């Protein structure tokens, strides 16, 4: 077997070409990883939003809580249905919620749609890891609100004590900042249900009702009762399924990301192949010498494939390292489902690692394959004559 140091030192000798290829590869791997990291972040935020015992009740035919609403009277009836989980005080773990999409002003002066969610006390328990991390919770009926960390940072008046102004009729005083386990709620502003009803003039209607069933049989029973009741004309969806539906944007991003990653990988394969072809050409006589000394063709193939792989692995590792600081990155994008902004945090997970690994292996192996085969097919005598 040809020693690995032969390849390592050759890469070092051609350090300029090696560095350029590594940087190119790193750039491609990093850009794909960022894309997939954001897709994974989006999927995660929507996935953690759904509890397996949670139901979300919407108007029949409505696919999104922002696009349909129904009467409060119906919502009140839902809260009395048997099978709903109770909190320690005996109150049902269910909440009426009213959503309003308001056009908020960002700190940088641009405007964007924000979800203002009118909530009830149980809403907090229905979100994973809901926590007030600064300030306090709002007091009902006083025009106060709490905002997620991201909203607090990005929107004018989003800091504690600030005023979120969406017009003369709709404004809320920020009294606290919350986190919700990275779920979709972290892109929202929460206020008292009655304040939102009053400010938006939508008194007597709700956007949805969130319910947590006491058990799995209760969950199925509740869903059946609500869906089969012709008076209600409502649909109880599994919260999980609802958020999966919402993550269709993620699917689009994923498809686009995959396409881009494949194209980038092809590009990088050519770059790696180019470098390796140059390596084979400049070392033709060495290859001839190694063959004359008795190294079999398979050893030459492995050696050059290994060199190409090493080159791309260095690039892949560098690309992956470059994405690590992005773990703190959060971007705000438009959710076509709700017509409001959604914040996505970059997530360095298995998908990102797998993307980097697949790209690296593909670039290293396929980029190195043709040059390595060329090296193997060289006639020993002709190779020895090369200058």
């Amino acid at each position, binding site marked *: 077997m040809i*020693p690995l140091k*032969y390849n390592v*030192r050759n890469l070092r000798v051609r350090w300029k070409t090696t560095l350029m290829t590594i940087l190119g590869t790193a750039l491609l791997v990093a850009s794909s990883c960022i894309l997939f990291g954001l897709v994974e972040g989006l999927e995660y935020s929507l996935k953690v939003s759904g509890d397996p015992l949670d139901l979300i009740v919407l108007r029949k035919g409505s696919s999104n809580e922002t696009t349909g609403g129904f009467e409060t009277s119906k919502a009140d009836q839902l809260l009395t249905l048997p099978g709903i989980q109770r909190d320690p005080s005996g109150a049902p773990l269910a909440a009426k919620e009213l959503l309003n999409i308001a056009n908020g002003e960002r700190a940088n002066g641009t405007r964007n749609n924000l979800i203002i969610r009118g909530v009830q006390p149980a809403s907090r328990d229905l979100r994973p890891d809901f926590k007030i991390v600064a300030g306090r919770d709002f007091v009902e009926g006083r025009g106060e609100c709490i905002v997620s960390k991201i909203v607090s940072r990005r929107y004018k008046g989003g800091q504690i004590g600030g005023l979120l102004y969406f017009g003369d009729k709709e404004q809320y005083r920020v009294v606290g900042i919350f986190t919700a386990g990275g779920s979709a709620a972290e892109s929202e502003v929460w206020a008292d249900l009655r304040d939102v009803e009053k400010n938006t003039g939508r008194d007597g209607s709700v956007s949805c009702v969130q319910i947590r069933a006491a058990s799995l049989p209760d969950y199925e029973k509740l869903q059946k009762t609500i869906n089969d009741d012709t008076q209600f004309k409502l649909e109880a969806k599994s919260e999980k399924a609802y958020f999966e539906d919402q993550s269709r944007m993620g699917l689009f991003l994923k498809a686009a990301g995959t396409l881009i990653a494949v194209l980038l990988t092809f590009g990088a394969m050519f770059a790696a192949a180019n470098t390796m072809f140059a390596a084979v050409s400049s070392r033709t006589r060495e290859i001839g010498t190694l063959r004359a000394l*008795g190294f079999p*063709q398979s050893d030459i193939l492995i050696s050059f494939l290994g060199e190409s792989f090493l080159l791309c692995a260095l690039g892949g590792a560098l690309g992956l390292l470059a994405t690590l600081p992005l773990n703190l990155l959060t971007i705000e994008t438009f959710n076509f489902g709700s017509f409001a902004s959604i914040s996505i945090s970059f997530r360095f997970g298995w998908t990102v690692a797998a993307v980097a690994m697949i790209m690296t292996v593909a670039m290293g192996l396929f980029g190195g394959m043709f040059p390595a085969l060329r090296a193997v097919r060289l006639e020993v*005598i002709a190779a*020895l004559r090369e200058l």
Partner: protein
Amino acid sequence: MEAKGYSFMRQTSSIVLRSVYKEYRRDEFVIPVLADLDLEVAEGEYLALMGPSGSGKTTLLNLVAGLDRSTKGEVTVHGQVLGHLSEAEVTRWRANNVGFIFQTYNLIPVLTAFENVELPLLLTSLSRRKRREHVMTALRIVGLEKREHHYPRQLSGGQEQRVAIARAIVTDPYLLVADEPTGDLDRTTAGEILDLLELLNREFQKTIVMVTHDPLAAARASRVLHLDKGRLVDEVIQETRVSIAS
């Protein structure tokens, strides 16, 4: 000096070529290089091949070393008919039986003298410790044991060729093939390299086949064959070889 190789050649032939014909094809052209060549080289003989460019001497060397195959005829080296071996088998055969010395040394520039000499041993099952022993022995024979950590660029031409000779002998092959081994060296250094080859032939009984244009180099061999247009045109058995200069 007695041409001792030639005297026992017929009893113990190391290399036997029978009606060897070799041609190359370049597009529609057929270029004959060797024509019905018969040759025997005795074990331990030092043979020099001379002739003008294109006379077929390097082709003959390549056939004997298992780097090329004859179009017709049979090449037998140490009892092995090379034409019967597959590509992989002949590669393995080369590793075990032939040491190569090239005009331009053909050392791997990114490996040290030690690592270059060690290369052929990587194809064996020897332990690292054993490999080190063998490499140091070979470097000692060529007088470069103190240069083991030097890269080729840090050595003179003559030293590079010595490293190449150490690499050729490190597996203790019974055949050494040398293609213009002094072609790139000045007269004094060339003399030292030829001394070394002669030493390997005399003291270590290596069979050597050397291609050369240099009459002084050929004068060191026990037999000189002259080729022209693919045929043997002259054969000189050297009763007195030029003795080791040093």
